[in-house]
């Protein structure tokens, strides 16, 4: 299956690349969008092959990354529009989705998207109780109660009376 990216049918002039996800689906991407990923840029510089196989990025995640790259490669969009696209892009996404997204940006070396997603993940954790974060992200507490109390005591300044949310 070949899916065109959001910009519709590609003109003959524009070079394009085919990217295959680990699920086997193929995506047609303009070269100008692909080179925004440092890893893809390197691959394209090294070989003439127009088909790139990514063995650790699934369909859903790859489609999101490509939508991001295509938007950022569009010269017709202002920086303001791109910024609001970025905000919209990460808002309302499940933590799980963000996790695969941030892993993909790490593999593909898309620095600005990596920052945007990491910031979104930090926003989710912001001002939350430790218990909430552990529960939500399924983090195993490997401290004994005594050890945990000791850590809280050592950094007592970080645990003052500030209100934290538990929602």
């Amino acid at each position: 299956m070949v899916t065109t990216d959001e910009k519709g049918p590609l003109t003959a002039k524009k070079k394009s690349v085919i990217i295959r996800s680990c699920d086997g689906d193929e995506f047609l991407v303009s070269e100008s969008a692909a080179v925004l990923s440092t890893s893809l840029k390197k691959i394209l510089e090294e070989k003439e092959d127009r088909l790139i196989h990514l063995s650790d990025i699934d369909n859903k995640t790859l489609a999101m990354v490509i939508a991001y790259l295509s938007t950022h490669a569009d010269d017709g969009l202002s920086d303001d529009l791109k910024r609001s696209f970025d905000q919209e892009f990460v808002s309302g996404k499940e933590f799980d989705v963000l996790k695969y997204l941030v892993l993909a940006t790490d593999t593909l070396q898309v620095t600005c998207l990596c920052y945007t997603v990491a910031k979104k993940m930090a926003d989710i954790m912001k001002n939350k109780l430790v218990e909430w974060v552990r529960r939500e992200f399924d983090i195993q507490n490997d401290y004994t109660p005594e050890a945990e109390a000791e850590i809280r005591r050592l950094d007592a300044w970080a645990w003052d009376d500030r209100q934290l949310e538990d929602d």
Partner: protein
Amino acid sequence: MDMISQLPEGILYHILSFLSTKNAVQTCVLSKLWRHLVSTRPNIQFSLSCFNGNKETFMSVLDKTLQRYHDEKICIQVFHVMMWCDDYELISLLEKLIPIVALNMGVNKFSLYIRGTISAYFDLPSVVFEAQSLKHLNLRGFKLNSIEKIHFKYLRRLSLSEVYISDAAFEKIISSCHLIEDVVLFCCEGLKTIQVMHKHHKYFKGFELWGRHSKGDDVNGISIEIGVPTLETLKIVGCPNWYHQHKYFPCLMSLNLDNMRLSNWSFDFFSCNYLPNLKILTLNYCYGFEEFHLSSVSIKHLNIEGMKKSIKAVIDVPSMVKFDYHGDIPSSIAFTATTFGYQWKSNICLCFYDVHHSSWFLKLNKLLDVVSQSEISLHLFDNGLSDNRQNIEDVLDTTCDGLYKPTVAVEQLKLALSGPSSSYSFSPVINNMFRICRPRNIIQCWCTHKSDRAGKKLAEFL
């Protein structure tokens, strides 16, 4: 492994860097892995405010943290500390802790904002100039007098705020850092003449200079001459002596001048002959001229604020998309561009305080007529100090001297009348407004809580 801890360390450090220092330190309790991350994170950001102003704890935590980074040879990439405290505490911090940070091989952002109790400026330990990997240097409250050798060759951004720096020291930094992109100088002392004329700066994009002088005080200002062809944004505030004759800035996109003395030559300078790529021009509280003719085919966004009432302006900017005007109604303004081929917007913001005659509305009528081709947003506000509005003649004489122009459609009329007294009547103002404009939307907002009653009255009236 849980789903978040599987992420590579680099990403987890990123996530931590977006949390406040307090939040980040709290994550120590999540699990041993998180404690390890927090204690080795490359971003060190502390401000006295996250210790609720407790200086003792702040100093001891900062001291312990930096000592540990030093002992365990942990890389510091970002160092950001903001503090105000007694002079002796600051001096001990500077002597002991700054070398640890500056000599840490990874540091690329160094921001230190300090304020003491007695001294205005503190000598910056010269070791900071030995930080080879430095890319951003942001300082407040320091004295930079003579610099022997600068080791950072890759500095991109220099921001000095309330710093004492000599001309020679500034020149030394700028000429040593060929990759510099942005320079911000905010209310620095010691600078007399700034000259940035180096041709070898290939990436110099932004320059911002805030002088310490106020209008009319032409003696104490800094002289500036800048001739960097790669410059894209330039902002100068309060520097009477800006030498820009015959300078050509092919890349300059945004020019912002505030509290600057301008001449007719300055308005020639804004044209495409010198600034062919200028998109945004902002002139705030500029003085020294009675009339001006602005002509540019590249400007898209023109902002004018705080111009003298007596100004006569001719604006010939055919590509304009947005026109922002704040201040008094100018005595004469004209747009000579024959056609604006597409929709443009004008945002007119006027102070209301001296309105005690209906002639004010005639002037406004004239101004609206000039911008009537645009989508107008009109914002009227008062400072609540004057009760003169009560004396507005009730009816604007629409027949006088043939000056009256037809009513103009206004997309948005925003009224911010603070109405100091309950006896204040809106009807003359509103009636006169409706004689000169047809607003599609009316928004009211209030400057002070005192005006609740007045607000209700206007709401009822409308």
